[in-house]
């Protein structure tokens, strides 16, 4: 904890915040020097976002003090934060997607004629001025739902600058960006620093801290661990501080022994909500005994591809075959009956019925298996036996969770129920979409190990993830998806993150 002084843009001392009986933050300190980029590092759920939400006035701390430029302040709500020159770009963008870029930027701070009528001309002029000053290239008249994620992020930054922010908080800003876009973002950040602004960036990505930040504060399970200058600290050291024990950053596995083709997608076209082709001439084969990873930036057709494979939306052209059977344009059940199991991206929305018990969630697919439930009724004894087996096998905690509502479990344990359930179907093809999103390191290891075990049993595994590192480390082959099709396929180790990043952005590598 540093002395309170006006050399610091932000100082938060002894912050404690609880939700009900759960303590998200306990006595956390943060000192951010003026004109620097300061990272907050921690695992998912460590309390980084909570700390920043306290600074931004979305939450009130139970105790602790906040100083801005050496003066104590109380920040009761976001309006107060904005008045104090604090801006925040949330991880999930806070944009109204039926509004234009300018409408989003001016919302709550509108220019008016006579106090009520909107003056959009003036607003647009102000926005364009900021766009030019910091190189934040966006079209002020475009609807937010029509622009790329990278542009949406710039709109968020513009929103903060428009309100005259001096300190900008970025919550996981790179999660959805390409390598090139990340470079651009870092450039923008540097330009802001040059202009005298201060930036706080929340992340769990060690590389970006090294690339961007001056200092780094580490938080673990709601507790302050340390603040270090970034220069001279290795990634491994940061990682150890973050998780509390030495971690293996490399996934261990033997080389794949691929056999026959299980999934065969040929010339697939799928339309998105707006009726445009989101998947265009998509071709991919996944063989028994290999893991194929799809790398790509969010929004390049992965969502639509997976919806089409699971028959949630129709395919307009092309075929999807599992072991030679065409499954496209049937029902989700049809794919499952042909040996496909899917670990969905959004476990709360698509994976679980949160108000159902773990027992019921475990048999969400099994219940209709005539071998499992021969009659009209649910065989409760079998249901309990089956679930208890899963709980043991996957170390789902608490072990007494069977009759408990699935919503009461932690994210990692919820994910284990889904994974256990899907693997219990004995699939020939296992599809995992963002299977480690929001999980802690221990749970991530379990998930990756399980995928590799399934591969070694001869299952064809397809992994879709927006975390490039995950795709690179777990997959035997990597297909890069760009603009709805496979831009290139690489073997593991053939290319590095940087080269893949180039392909993910629509470029190509010489000779490929």
């Amino acid at each position, binding site marked *: 904890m540093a002395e309170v002084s006006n050399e610091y843009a932000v100082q938060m001392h002894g912050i*404690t915040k*609880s939700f*009900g*009986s759960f*303590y998200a933050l*306990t006595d956390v300190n943060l000192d951010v020097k003026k004109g620097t980029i300061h990272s907050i590092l921690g695992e998912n759920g460590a309390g980084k976002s909570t700390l920043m939400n306290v600074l931004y006035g979305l939450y009130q701390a139970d105790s602790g003090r906040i100083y801005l430029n050496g003066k104590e302040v109380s920040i009761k709500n976001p309006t107060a934060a904005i008045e104090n020159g604090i801006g925040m770009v949330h991880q999930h963008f806070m944009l109204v997607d039926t509004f234009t870029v300018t409408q989003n930027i001016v919302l709550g701070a509108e220019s008016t004629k006579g106090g009520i009528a909107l003056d959009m001309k003036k607003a647009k002029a102000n926005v364009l001025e900021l766009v030019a000053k910091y190189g934040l290239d966006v079209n002020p008249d475009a609807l937010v739902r029509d622009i790329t994620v990278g542009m949406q992020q710039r709109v968020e930054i513009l929103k903060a600058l428009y309100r005259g922010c001096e300190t900008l908080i970025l919550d996981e800003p790179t999660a959805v960006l390409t390598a090139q876009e990340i470079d651009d973002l870092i450039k923008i950040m540097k330009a802001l620093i040059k202009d005298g602004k201060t930036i706080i960036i929340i992340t769990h990505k060690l590389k970006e801290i090294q690339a961007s930040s001056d200092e780094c504060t*580490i938080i*673990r399970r*709601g*507790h302050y*661990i*340390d603040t*270090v200058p970034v220069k001279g*600290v290795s990634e491994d*050291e940061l990682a150890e*501080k973050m998780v*509390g024990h030495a971690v293996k950053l490399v996934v261990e596995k033997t080389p794949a022994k691929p056999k026959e083709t299980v999934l065969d997608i040929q010339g697939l076209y799928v339309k998105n909500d707006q009726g445009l082709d989101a998947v265009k001439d998509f071709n991919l084969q996944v063989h028994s005994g290999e893991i194929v990873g799809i790398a790509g930036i969010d929004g390049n057709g992965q969502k639509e591809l997976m919806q089409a494979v*699971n028959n*949630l939306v129709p395919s307009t052209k092309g075929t999807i075959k599992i072991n030679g059977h065409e499954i496209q344009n049937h*029902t*989700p*059940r049809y794919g*499952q009956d042909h040996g496909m199991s*899917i670990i*969905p991206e959004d476990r709360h*929305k*698509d*994976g*679980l*019925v*949160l*108000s*159902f018990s773990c027992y*019921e969630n475990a048999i*969400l*697919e099994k*219940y*209709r298996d005539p071998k499992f*439930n021969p009659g*009209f*009724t*649910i065989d409760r004894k079998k249901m309990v036996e089956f679930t208890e087996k899963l709980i043991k096998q996957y170390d789902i905690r608490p072990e007494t969770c069977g009759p408990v509502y699935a919503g009461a479990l932690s994210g990692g344990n919820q994910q284990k129920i889904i994974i256990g359930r899907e693997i219990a179907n004995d699939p020939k093809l296992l599809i995992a979409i963002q299977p480690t999103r929001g999980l802690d390191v221990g749970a991530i290891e379990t998930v990756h190990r399980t995928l590799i075990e399934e591969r070694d049993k001869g299952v064809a595994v397809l992994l879709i993830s927006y975390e490039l590192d995950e795709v690179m480390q777990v997959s035997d082959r990597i297909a890069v998806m760009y603009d709805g099709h496979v831009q290139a396929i690489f073997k593991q180790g053939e290319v590095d993150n940087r080269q893949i990043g180039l392909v993910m952005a629509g470029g190509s590598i010489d000779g490929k």
Partner: protein
Amino acid sequence: MESKVRKALRNPFALTIIAIILGFIIAMFILAVAGFPPFKSVGILIKGMLGTPKDFTAVIIKSTPIIFTGLGVAFAMKTGLFNIGGEGQYMVGCIAAVAIGSWLDFPAPLQIIFTVLAAVLASALYAGLVGLLKAKKGIHEVISSIMLNWIALYLNNWFTNTNFYHKPNTMGSYPVRESAYTMILPQWKRSEAGLAVLRNNKFLLQVLGRNDVNVGFIVAIAASVLVTWILTRTRKGFELRAVGSNIHAARYTGIDVEKNMIQSMMISGALCGLGAAFYITGQQPHLLNTLSSSENIGFNGLSVAFIAQNSPIGCIFAGLLFGGLLYGGATLQSQLGAPTEIINIIIGVIVFLVALSILIPRFLDTHTKKEKPQEVTAKEKEKKKGAGNV
């Protein structure tokens, strides 16, 4: 540990009772403001409901149709659908019961079976249409149901006035044939032997002799048990609840969501149809009348389901409460001249308060003493120190 009071306040049943009591208190307040003696009014209301075996039996009879429509609403609600169309489904059921029950001419058990089946089938199909519109066209069930309610009302009036069914010089249709009646011992209680027995047993006389006691209430109890069983024990119920609780996960894991929506609506409608069947076959006047506005049997079922918080068994009690208030309200009007609409206010307030009762557990959650925060273990603290030297 939480105190007993706190525990009680988390119990939905206890909260419902509190809501009902508050409903009465607010009604008493309104009555007092309007110049009626509040305590006497409530006394008359309750005495009207429970005063004599005859009254209580009448309450059961009055409640039976709304228990059925309540069950229908609760079933749909458990599966994520808001069946505000019980009104129309019930009316269509009545029309079908009269259409078949007055036209066909079979001996008793067959005539009853055909009449009941006709009502159930008609209501199920009418409700299924709502499910179909939602599943295939994405039309919200509330809107289509409301429209179908009005269509059913005019259908009722049109049907009642067709040459074939209209009974000349009345406002109504012909009644169903006596062979379709479902009252308990209707002939016996009017026969010499029956009357002799009833004269000697005052209780039986009040229960049987003065009312159209019918099998409907027994069927309603059976139906609520059956509905509970379907929802909690069967594969179909599992599917339906999954669709109702998280439609996305249900679809993702391969449940045919559209089919389940339609089926759920049809079962919901069928329950309303049962109510219609036993109303027509079990109570005077056993026929349809020209209506200027709907009789609210379906809408009242909505309130019943809300008060019961969608518990099928709870619907029996909520239905008895509602039926009792409706019956006792008439006494209130005849004895004190207080408008019967006070009943609607009471019920509305109870429904409103039951919806608000979720506030109380939430309030308790935010005002619970917090556990001490867990300290970083000594080992981790050491690391913390060590880490500072990097």
